């Protein structure tokens, strides 16, 4: 497949938007390289790096052995010496083995060494449920990253954001973890290369007055679906897509809840100590006086992810139940 050159796409997949972002970034900066398992010849397990090998050659698009800690560690070393690596971890679950390099090394280097050096790298990875990948291939581990000072964390929900935020991630001069949802790769939407996204700013997708629904990644799209159903019942929900979890755009969240006085926080991570817990407490801390009901976090269950499709489906939030809870919150 050829890589298209135009600036505007009425419709493009999330996957192709990511591919374009890497392509454009690599064209503009010859020090950007990609390394990871099956990123070159295979084109990435989910196809995001397809054809980049042909475009940029094997010095810049590098297949690695199955050695996750060293994939991340190599990116760190390269980033410290002049390159801008994009390291791909095929599944977010492989944080399990690479966490030393991510958390103890990349996140700490600038601080420990008194600001002498930065680590301008991106870890692209993929997570979430929906393909019966089971307990070790379906997790949502963003809270592991959000917990560690020194790492940016990006989780886009649509092609336009994915394109711009991936390019921005490479410009931050800070190790950035970019997590894609495995069911979003085929998700389509417009892309306007000129219509930049502000890194660290949440997006209000749907203005409303009755309830604020705060989401990110795939859950944003669930929220949008739910908002349509709520609208049929004359309930106007405001949808906030966080886009980046660190930096986190607290102001947009707080301002919205001050207006609607009701909040529902969505996440595909676990209920306990998840991203949703953090956002929920921020709302309580800042909107306590205006809240008409407790803030509700609707998340995946506090259990590992089951394989059976019928169990997996209801293990995470569903559109119908988002609608149901939103109605219960405002009545």
């Amino acid at each position, binding site marked *: 497949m050829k890589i298209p050159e135009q600036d505007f796409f009425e419709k493009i997949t999330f996957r192709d938007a990511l591919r374009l972002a890497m392509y454009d970034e690599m064209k503009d900066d010859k020090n950007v390289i990609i390394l990871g*398992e099956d990123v070159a010849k295979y084109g990435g397990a989910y196809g995001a790096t397809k054809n980049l090998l042909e475009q940029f050659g094997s010095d810049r698009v590098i297949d690695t052995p*199955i050695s996750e800690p060293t994939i991340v560690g190599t990116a760190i070393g390269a980033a410290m010496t002049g390159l801008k690596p994009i390291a791909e971890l095929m599944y977010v679950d492989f944080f399990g083995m690479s966490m030393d390099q991510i958390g103890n090394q990349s996140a700490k280097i600038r601080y420990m060494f008194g600001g002498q050096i930065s680590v301008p790298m991106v870890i692209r990875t993929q997570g979430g449920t929906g393909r019966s*990948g089971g307990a070790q291939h379906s997790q949502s581990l963003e809270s592991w990253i959000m917990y560690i000072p020194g790492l940016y964390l990006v989780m886009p929900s649509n092609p336009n954001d994915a394109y711009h935020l991936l390019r921005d991630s490479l410009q931050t001069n800070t190790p950035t973890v970019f997590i894609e949802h495995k069911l979003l790769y085929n998700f389509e939407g417009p892309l306007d290369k000129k219509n930049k996204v502000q890194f660290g700013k949440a997006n209000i997708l749907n203005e409303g007055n009755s309830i604020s629904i705060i989401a990110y990644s795939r859950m944003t799209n669930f929220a949008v679906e739910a908002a349509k159903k709520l609208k049929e019942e004359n309930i106007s929900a405001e949808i906030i897509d966080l886009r980046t979890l660190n930096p986190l755009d607290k102001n947009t969240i707080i301002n919205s809840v001050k207006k609607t006085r009701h909040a529902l926080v969505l996440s595909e991570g676990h209920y306990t100590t998840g991203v949703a817990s953090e956002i929920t407490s921020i709302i309580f801390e800042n909107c306590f006086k205006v809240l008409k009901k407790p803030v509700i976090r609707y998340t995946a269950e506090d259990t590992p992810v*089951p394989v059976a499709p019928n169990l997996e489906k209801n293990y995470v939030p569903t559109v119908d139940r988002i609608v149901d809870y939103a109605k219960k919150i405002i009545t």
Partner: protein
Amino acid sequence: MNSKSNTNLQDLYTTMKRIRVFEERVAELFVRGETAGSMLHLSIGEELGPACVTKAMIDGDTFTTHHRGHGIFLARGGDPDKMMAEIAGKKDGYCKGKGGSMHIADMSLGHLGANAIVGGGIPTVVGAALSYKYLNKKNVSIAFFGDGAMQQGILYESMNMAALWKLPVVFCCINNQYGMGTKIDDAVAVKDFSLRAKSFGLECLHVNHLDAEKAYTDIKEIVDNTRNNKPSFIEVECYRFYGHARKDKSPYRNEDEEIENRKLDPIAFAKENILTQNILNEEEIKSIDMTVDKEMDVSMNYAINSPLNVESEIFTDVYDKSYTIESVDSRINNILKNK
């Protein structure tokens, strides 16, 4: 009936055939839309290693496998009905449909777990062997993994500890030449894996032929030796006949390579030997094949007809039974009730 008795070769043939047909049926189950997801890694073309190594195991031996573990477990006595039901994500599966293809296991058969993390199950066998040595058992614990796992650091930590503590561990690499789309030549600078294992102090065996009977004899010898606390490394070379998952095509490798390498068929080789050695005749082999076909058809249908599991199963098996997990729904409703 048999002109010459050689039950080993006949057994090995039957085992390999059962693996192949089982995997064919898994592929069919997928096409029929009856599997839980599509992460189904088949052992077609790789039957020799699983058949020979498991035949060298005795009661009480344990093992872990990689994600491509159907064949190994079937050969070690796994019930194809329950395996297939697990692959379908159904209630009657080995793990109640919660584990799926990549996590089939039956602890009562010594299967300490199939793993979806490349290399993830390797240190488990070091621990199992530590326990056998401590408990004075004559058992071994065997880690099965692919050539891809040869590039995981955890393997070398495990090899070193097994050698240092002289544990009855067998590290068994099923080298099918590929890790997903990456050919082994693109993953390692030196392909002679035994060199690595030797340098840690392990006994080594490299099987790179199709003669299952000979492979079994050699493997049995090294596994028996391992029982005397002499940890070992076995590499079995083979070729992954189809794509990384299901019976997918592999656009990253050329078709001539596939055609050439699919000729390296351990089942066809075993069949020929059975015939030339007059162990069985064509008719008798056909009757084995038909029995296997029927067995695996029954398993496939068993999986299709097995019921779905109930939703409350999401919450079981996380902790011990005394601990109940409250669903998110119940938490939310309680909060909203309190106002």
